[in-house]
């Protein structure tokens, strides 16, 4: 009998669940309805719609924006691996225990502290205009090159801190066990500590990658015409903000799936730990 008919508890829980779902659907619908009905009634809605949501401008500018976005993706694509490498190196240098290598460790600490503390845009200006201003010839003064260097410097500092937190989260016993086998410090780090540490901080690093994808746009301050600069040009020529909405949508099309994926990784990791 138990298997074919529901117990009283099961019937109760089903009813509860149905009620909760109804409530959720109802309240969501109410909020959406209020937004759709009320916002257009605001006295300034016409002006806002014309300035931000002009359908024709949206369609006209979208292809140009998408073309400019390729540059964002390219900058991201060559910065990300460099950031991973430099971040890892800085994290390792930061954790060096051997006294002879203390200068390296201090340099890593100074580097991480300074670049984590500076606004990205300032570093981009300083490195992007400053270093080429010393008199480098083309192509070595390219804003793409030095803008990317600025991004790599800043983001590697963040990544280094994240990896370091991962290294420190690995229990001392793992180190002792590896050392007791006669492995060198370098092998202990490479084979035992880092693989575990890096795996642990994948979600945190995913978030940094998403932030990087957005900060790539800051390179436009020193010349490269990427999507936000392109949107700004359209805005200036048309005296209309709609191109920014287009740019934002293109960005979201990339960052939302990436964010979801990061959340998914985080959830999986938490499940695995519990």
């Amino acid at each position, binding site marked *: 009998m138990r298997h074919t008919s529901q117990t009283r508890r099961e019937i109760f829980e089903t009813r509860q669940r149905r009620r909760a779902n109804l409530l959720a659907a109802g309240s969501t619908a109410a909020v959406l309805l209020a937004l759709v009905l009320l916002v257009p009634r605001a006295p300034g809605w016409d002006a806002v719609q014309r300035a931000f949501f002009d359908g024709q401008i949206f369609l006209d500018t979208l292809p140009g924006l998408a073309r400019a976005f390729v540059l964002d993706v390219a900058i991201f694509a060559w910065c990300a691996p460099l950031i991973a490498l430099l971040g890892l190196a800085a994290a390792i240098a930061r954790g060096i225990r051997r006294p002879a290598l203390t200068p390296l460790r201090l340099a890593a600490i100074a580097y991480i502290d300074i670049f984590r503390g500076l606004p990205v845009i300032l570093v981009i200006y300083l490195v992007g205009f400053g270093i080429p201003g010393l008199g480098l010839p083309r192509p070595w003064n390219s*804003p793409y090159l030095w803008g990317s260097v600025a991004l790599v410097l800043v983001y590697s500092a963040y990544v280094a801190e994240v990896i370091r937190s991962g290294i420190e989260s690995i229990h001392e016993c793992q180190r002792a066990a590896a050392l007791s086998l006669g492995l060198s410090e370098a092998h202990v780090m490479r084979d035992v500590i880092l693989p575990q540490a890096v795996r642990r901080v994948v979600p945190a690093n995913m978030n940094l990658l998403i932030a990087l994808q957005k900060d790539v746009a800051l390179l436009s301050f020193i010349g490269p015409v990427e999507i936000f600069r392109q949107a700004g040009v359209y805005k200036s*020529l048309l005296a209309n903000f709609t191109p920014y909405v287009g740019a934002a949508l293109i960005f979201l099309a990339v960052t939302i799936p990436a964010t979801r994926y990061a959340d998914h990784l985080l959830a999986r990791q938490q499940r695995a730990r519990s």
Partner: protein
Amino acid sequence: MNRLLPVALACLAAGPALAQNDCAAGHTISEGTLTIATGNPAYSPWVLNDDPASGEGFEAAVAYAVAAEMGFAPDQVSWVRTSFDQAIQPGAKDFDLNMQQFSITPERDRMVDFSEPYYSSAMAVLTRASVVEAEDLSPDLDSLKGLLWGADANTTALPVLMALISPERDPRLYGDNTDVTAAMKAGQIDAALFDLPTALYLAAVALDDGVILGQFPSERSENPDRFGMLMPEGSALKPCVDAAITTLRENGTLAELEVKWLQDATGVPVID
């Protein structure tokens, strides 16, 4: 107090007595005051020393002259600062007129109102002596195509650049004059396109070895770069402002102010 003197001078330059004219009455955002916006910062030679209330600089002087025509005494003019974005954003504005070398274009005119133009500018090529030497530049289109170009992204220089020069490599764009000249000093761009007065100013002040290679006279380009005062779309003030500017143009005041505040551009070669 010492500020009043230049202001008074500007008013004298603006012509005869303050015509008491009430076409603006009831149309300004605060009664009895004309609120004019400029950039933050405002650049020379349009506004000297980032101080529009001094009446020094071409736009500052024109502003007081227009105000006088509209019936506002110098002490009835108040200044605010806006970015370009604030000038075009929807919703209530905190200025009656916005004056920062806004070029009049049909596309912009759909979103905001422009006054009659108060200035027509030639576009000029700003570069550095070292570049002229290295590239053996001459003021002709062919030698300009191969350069690496820059421009201020918020101006109409870019479409002019693409239409007149159509450079071989994509131009690089910047947020303001300072960044354009910084890129020039860093050797990241060879040349940049500006309105002539701005180019002359930057060549003289912002760059050590700045050179104006040449100009495209305004009547030559398809869309001459004409500066107008920007007003919110449908502004009731527009007829009043237009009348004032027309008067100032016809009675020669605008020409006088140009002579007074804008550097003499004779001798800048014309590019063909």
